[in-house]
């Protein structure tokens, strides 16, 4: 994956995740706009945290045996907790508001602190599921399945319809409660409806995207839109549009730069706010020109193919290509699990001894060799001349030095893995460099950097996920 257009293609593997983020980006700012205008923005921070406490609470209950294991999976059980805690929290905060106990900000701050503490405590009580719960709370929207996407689209679609249908009532109740009472009767009905829609969005959004990303989508686009408009309808549609832009460009940046989605989106949202205030200081014509220029630059950058394709073997005069061992710079062993079925097959074939365990580096080099040979390269392994050859780094200078010390002449293919992490069984986050270097003059003939989350949807265990991701990377590497 290298271009912006690719992630917008429905055939792209992460397209459901992109669509889910876009739905959140489109709908959440509409609710956030009212939270900001009603000066209850901290509610947008506190409620997601309360929902997160609900998620960890239900997982803890399940761990202790109070709740049965549910067929619908982790998100299903988490969603129940999220909904329950969100509405309980809203009810309690509403009750305290009615009774006017303490100051509003104080109540929200205390609720936020308590919810944060409870979230951590329930995770600590639940050692068996710590990683799963933490993953859910981080909001792995990237692992959104099609079924979950359908649910998200249905819930947020209904919320969108509600926000559009009752926009006049929500505006009137928020802006002038007295007039709302005279024209529409009891304002409490509209307050309850607005907070109901907010609660449902937050409860579902937290389990799909995590509290940080959800809070970002709720408030940041609306805060960025506010200085640029002077009427309510523009404010709402611009908030929504900025939320969508934040979702799409945040997603693209996250995949391209191998960054976690939540913090990337939130950082982008904050940049939008600064940009909005900067644009406000210049004339509308100049601001429009600047936006168009930036969009063209982003589009050009996003659509550009940053890497050259692998040169053909003939073009390199069929020189010998030394395929060096893959260097592992992750600090992890990256060994395949002992239960890996490939290991059993290899053992049966007598290719490996019973105490040998394959690693990701071995798998990668095997696949690279196969692919290069298929493309007509004369591939030779350095250890065939001297078994002491180490893995070569991707740094050109050091790779050339090692090759010259080992008296390897011609071309050398070097690979280095910087990051290799299985976020869940559905994705492996990879950051690796690949180069073909001429040993005589140290020139780089081809290079590629793979930095992305590689989807492994059909993997049932970690070994299979690693194997699938190696195949996907090699395919990607030679596809350009």
């Amino acid at each position, binding site marked *: 994956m290298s271009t912006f257009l690719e992630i917008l293609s429905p055939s792209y593997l992460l397209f459901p995740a992109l669509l889910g983020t876009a739905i959140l980006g489109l709908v959440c700012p509409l609710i956030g706009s009212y939270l900001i*205008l009603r000066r209850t923005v901290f509610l947008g921070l506190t409620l997601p945290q309360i929902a997160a406490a609900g998620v960890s609470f239900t997982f803890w209950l399940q761990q202790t045996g109070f709740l049965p294991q549910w067929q619908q999976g982790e998100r299903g059980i988490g969603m129940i907790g999220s909904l329950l805690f969100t509405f309980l929290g809203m009810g309690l905060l509403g009750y305290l508001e009615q009774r006017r106990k303490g100051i509003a900000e104080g109540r929200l701050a205390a609720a936020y602190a308590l919810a944060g503490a409870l979230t951590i405590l329930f995770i600590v009580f639940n050692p068996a599921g710590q990683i799963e719960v933490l993953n859910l709370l981080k909001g792995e929207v990237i692992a959104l399945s099609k079924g979950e996407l359908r649910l998200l689209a249905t819930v947020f679609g209904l919320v969108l319809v509600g926000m559009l249908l009752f926009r006049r009532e929500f505006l009137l109740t*928020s*802006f*002038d409660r007295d007039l709302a009472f*005279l*024209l529409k009767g009891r304002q409490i009905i509209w307050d309850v409806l607005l907070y109901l829609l907010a609660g449902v969005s937050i409860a579902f959004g937290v389990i799909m995207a995590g509290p940080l990303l959800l809070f970002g989508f709720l408030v940041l686009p609306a805060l960025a839109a506010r200085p640029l408009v*002077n009427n*309510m309808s523009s404010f709402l549609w611009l908030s929504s549009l900025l939320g969508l832009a934040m979702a799409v460009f945040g997603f693209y940046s996250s995949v391209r730069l191998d960054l976690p989605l939540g913090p990337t989106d939130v950082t982008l949202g904050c940049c939008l706010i600064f940009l909005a205030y900067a644009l406000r200081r210049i004339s509308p014509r100049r601001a429009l020109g600047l936006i168009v220029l930036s969009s063209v630059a982003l589009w050009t950058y996003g659509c550009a193919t940053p890497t050259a394709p692998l040169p053909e073997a003939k073009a390199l005069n069929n020189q010998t290509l030394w395929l060096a061992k893959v260097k592992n710079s992750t600090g992890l062993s990256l060994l395949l699990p002992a239960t890996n079925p490939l290991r059993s097959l290899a053992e049966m074939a007598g290719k490996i001894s019973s105490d040998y365990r394959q690693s990701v580096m071995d798998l990668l080099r095997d696949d690279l060799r196969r692919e290069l040979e298929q493309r007509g390269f004369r591939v030779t392994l350095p250890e065939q001349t001297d078994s002491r050859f180490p893995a070569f780094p991707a740094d050109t200078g050091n790779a050339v030095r090692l090759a010259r010390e080992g008296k390897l002449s011609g071309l050398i293919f070097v690979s280095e893995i910087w990051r290799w992490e299985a976020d869940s069984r559905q994705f492996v986050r990879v950051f690796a460099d690949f180069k073909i270097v001429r040993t005589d003059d140290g020139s780089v003939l081809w290079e590629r950097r793979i930095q992305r989350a590689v989807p492994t949807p059909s993997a049932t265990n970690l070994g299979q996920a690693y194997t699938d991701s190696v195949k996907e990377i090699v395919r990607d590497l030679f596809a350009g």
Partner: protein
Amino acid sequence: MDRLYCAHLGAVRQLEGMELGQDIDEIQSARGRVSKDDSLPLVSLQNVSLGYDSEPVLQNVDLTIYPGDLIGLAGPNGSGKTTLFRAILGLLPILSGTVSRNCPLSNFGYVPQSAALDPQFPLSTGEVVEMGAYGRIRPYEFFPAAEKKQIGEVLDQVGLRQLAARSFFSLSGGQKQRILIARALMVKPKIMILDEPLSGVDEESRKSISELLVGLTRHSGLAIFFSSHDVPMVRRVADRFLRVDKGKIWWEKKGVELHP
């Protein structure tokens, strides 16, 4: 002085009760627009006590508002003017007495103090005026073309049609008040209640708003009840004139000022 005040209050209350019909008839016939059949009171308060948390702010309030009335309410800040308005509008429960309204609450045009509205809201002038029609539009309806036309007409009435696209909170104090009056007119009200419409505005705006209020009662039969802490101005503009201070409320005759 107390005796004099009580005598005056009694006379005013008598005027307000028995003789008020005649008084209103005179005003209305002078305006030449309302028949006697129309002179049912729009709002009537009888021996009403008002306050917050059982603490009375105003007691023994007797007040009747007829179509075409232009009533001023004068008193210092914190004397209970807004409290009285809120009780009339049903926004504040009364402590005792009776409030009767002969028209639905949706026929009340309310003009709050513009300072009470949150400048955080990005609202155009047109959008603020549009709110007055919200009571007639169901949630699933598009904003009707007839109502859009009506917005232009009420903006014409207050002389600010050219500001329809401007940000409401970027307007001057006087312009904001006129826009809020336009919003109240958009309700198609029978009675309009204005809370301090002349505070925080320059002398020229005070004059133009006062003329606007007088014009509205003279030409459309609208009853207007407005407040101000500027006693001379209220005396000058209003047909009838109420004073409020220190928990008491009393009528004053125009041109005669009697203190409690």
